């Protein structure tokens, strides 16, 4: 159970000295990153991880939490002002946000988006605070077979639910698993796939690879679309919504908070899904569904609340089980590992006070971005107009120098650029990147726990199916894989039918 005294102490730590400065700076940059179309929360965290190395671990973590929550919220600003989501998580905010801007109500839309995001994020941070210790305590009963099953579950859900093609998801995930095996064998200590080079003895550096796959690959994409970035011309007035308007959206907030939390907890599904589900449920249950899409406050509040409500749910499996909920939490997990903090139940056992500080940090981060968002709304709106011809080279340099800074090794920089280019090419041809990254994270977990299970049972595979928790998780993994593949195939068949009909009409 959560320790309230430790939690209060956590708040005191967050609000003191460098921690609050780091949190405010993180939120500020997170909102900027989220507001600029093409720059994602994952990219922002990956870019800024190296900057946290010189900091105290908690200060670094709280800064990254600020970036994460700020960027998820910030995507709504571009959705409202230029009809282009700043991040994929804000896609549904366009439906009513942009029509409001066209009516001259851009300021009100941004104000509602800010408060809705804050409510969703704070709710889910509180849920994380109260549920995480319970889940972590349960997870302490896990042994090698259960962790193997969890890794299989995480991988199977990710490869089948991300991207257009489960086949390409499987290929991406398997390549990630193989990349994770480069280096020394975790139990035997002999080199694997190193081609005789000393640089590969430790495997590929994880953070430069993350920076490359998530940040630099997006940088290459920005080079491609550089000429098509739209400009903001709206004037923002009446930013803070009236109390009456907030009261009218109360049911929307409650519904979106619950939707966001449930979606966030589900592996491989994150804020991008939460915003659409939140919006569609708000429309479906509304007394006036015909008004959705014409520019109403509820149409902005629902997706923004749901997307930020998913953040706590995404962090929950990562921090309690070591199983990242999405790409952003995978990067956060990498950052925690760099600061010598291994996410999972042992983090709760060995660093209970630090965990409470993180909960306090998460709750505070959601309040901080509301204050920043309402205060500096006009500034963030102007940021969207930043010249990409200067921003994109800056992103490239930040990625390369950040990667170099990790170990003062040019090989890390090479790793970043190599995976950045590979990431760009594979995304172009519909191979999702998330399974590749999760394959690297979960591959280590899967292989080492499989080998431990075999050592425990003296090579008897039945150990994986005779333990009830492991068996349940493996059955869930099989079920999720089958339903995920069937759903993707139906979606692809619909697309093919539509393409054929369109071709016939022409």
């Amino acid at each position, binding site marked *: 159970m959560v320790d309230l005294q430790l939690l209060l102490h956590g708040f005191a730590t967050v609000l003191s000295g460098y921690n609050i400065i780091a949190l405010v700076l993180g939120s500020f940059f997170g909102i900027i990153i989220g507001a600029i179309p093409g720059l994602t929360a994952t990219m922002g965290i990956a870019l800024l991880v190296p900057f946290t190395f010189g900091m105290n671990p908690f200060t670094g973590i709280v800064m990254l939490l600020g970036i994460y929550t700020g960027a998820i919220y910030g995507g709504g600003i571009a959705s409202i002002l230029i009809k282009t989501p700043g991040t994929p998580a804000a896609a549904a905010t366009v439906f009513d946000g942009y029509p409001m801007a066209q009516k001259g109500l851009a300021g009100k839309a941004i104000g509602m988006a800010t408060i809705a995001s804050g409510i969703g994020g704070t709710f889910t941070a509180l849920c994380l605070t109260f549920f995480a210790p319970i889940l972590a305590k349960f997870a302490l009963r896990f042994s090698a077979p259960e962790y193997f099953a969890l890794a299989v579950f995480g991988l199977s859900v990710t490869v089948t639910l991300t991207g257009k093609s489960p086949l390409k998801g499987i290929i991406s995930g*398997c390549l990630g698993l*193989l990349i994770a095996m480069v280096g020394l064998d975790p139990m035997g200590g002999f080199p694997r796939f190193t081609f005789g080079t000393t640089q590969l003895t430790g495997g590929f550096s994880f953070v430069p690879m993350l920076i490359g796959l998530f940040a630099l690959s997006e940088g290459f994409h920005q080079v491609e679309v550089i000429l098509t970035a739209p400009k903001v011309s709206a004037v923002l007035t009446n930013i803070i919504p009236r109390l009456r308007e907030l009261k009218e959206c109360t049911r929307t907030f409650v519904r979106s908070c619950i939707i966001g939390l449930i979606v966030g907890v589900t592996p491989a599904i994150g804020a991008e899904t939460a915003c659409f589900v939140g919006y569609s449920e708000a429309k479906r249950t509304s007394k006036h569904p015909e008004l959705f899409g014409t520019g109403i406050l509820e149409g902005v509040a629902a997706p923004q609340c749901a997307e930020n409500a998913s953040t706590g749910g995404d962090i929950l499996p990562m921090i309690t089980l070591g199983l990242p909920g999405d790409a952003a939490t995978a990067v956060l997990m990498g950052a925690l590992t760099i600061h010598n903090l291994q996410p999972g139940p042992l983090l709760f056992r060995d660093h209970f006070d630090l965990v409470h500080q993180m909960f306090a940090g998460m709750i505070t981060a959601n309040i901080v971005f509301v204050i920043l968002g309402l205060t500096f709304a006009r500034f963030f709106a102007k940021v969207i107009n930043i010249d990409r011809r200067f921003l994109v080279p800056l992103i490239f*340099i930040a990625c390369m120098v950040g990667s170099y800074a990790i170990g003062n090794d*040019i090989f890390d920089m*090479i790793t970043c650029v190599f995976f950045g280019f590979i990431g760009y090419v594979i995304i172009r041809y519909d191979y999702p990147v998330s399974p590749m990254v999760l394959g690297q994270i979960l591959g280590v977990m899967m292989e080492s726990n499989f080998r431990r299970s075999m050592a425990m049972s003296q090579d008897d595979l039945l150990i994986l199916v005779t333990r009830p928790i492991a068996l349940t998780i493996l059955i869930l993994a099989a079920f999720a894989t089958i339903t995920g593949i069937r759903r993707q195939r139906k979606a692809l068949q619909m697309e093919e039918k539509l393409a054929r009909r369109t071709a016939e009409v022409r």
Partner: protein
Amino acid sequence: MANLTMKKADIIAVTIVIPICLYVFYESAQWPVPALLGRPFVIPRGVATLLVVAALLLLYRAVTGRSLPLENPLVGADLWRVIGAAVITFGYLFVVERIGFFGTTLLYMLLFALVLGERRWPRLVMFAILVPLVVYVLFSTALHVPLPRGWIENSLREHGFALIFR
């Protein structure tokens, strides 16, 4: 045309993936089998097998014309911009430890902004000088991370500019 491009990409992907899988089988056969530490080749071979099956299915889909359509083919000026960015970025990797961070980054920013279409020279030059300066100060002083030196900085140090560079 779009399908043909994705079809080619899928076939190329298969020709890359299958040799990787064959290499996994080849190398894993040479690993020792430590006592009481499980068989190290099980997971790698399992993953390689799954990858071969997936690759062959992808090849089948490509050959039978069922590849997903490529939505935005990369052609013309967009393609040349990406190639330009890739060439100068890979070039940066080769040169940065020889010339040093400051000089290489200055040149890199200049060339990159030119590739992206910026032609206003005063802004270009100011940007190319300011960025490496700010990054250098941030990393070297605030974060205490030394950046690659190269011969420019080493020469400046030898000639008594050690005060500027810590």
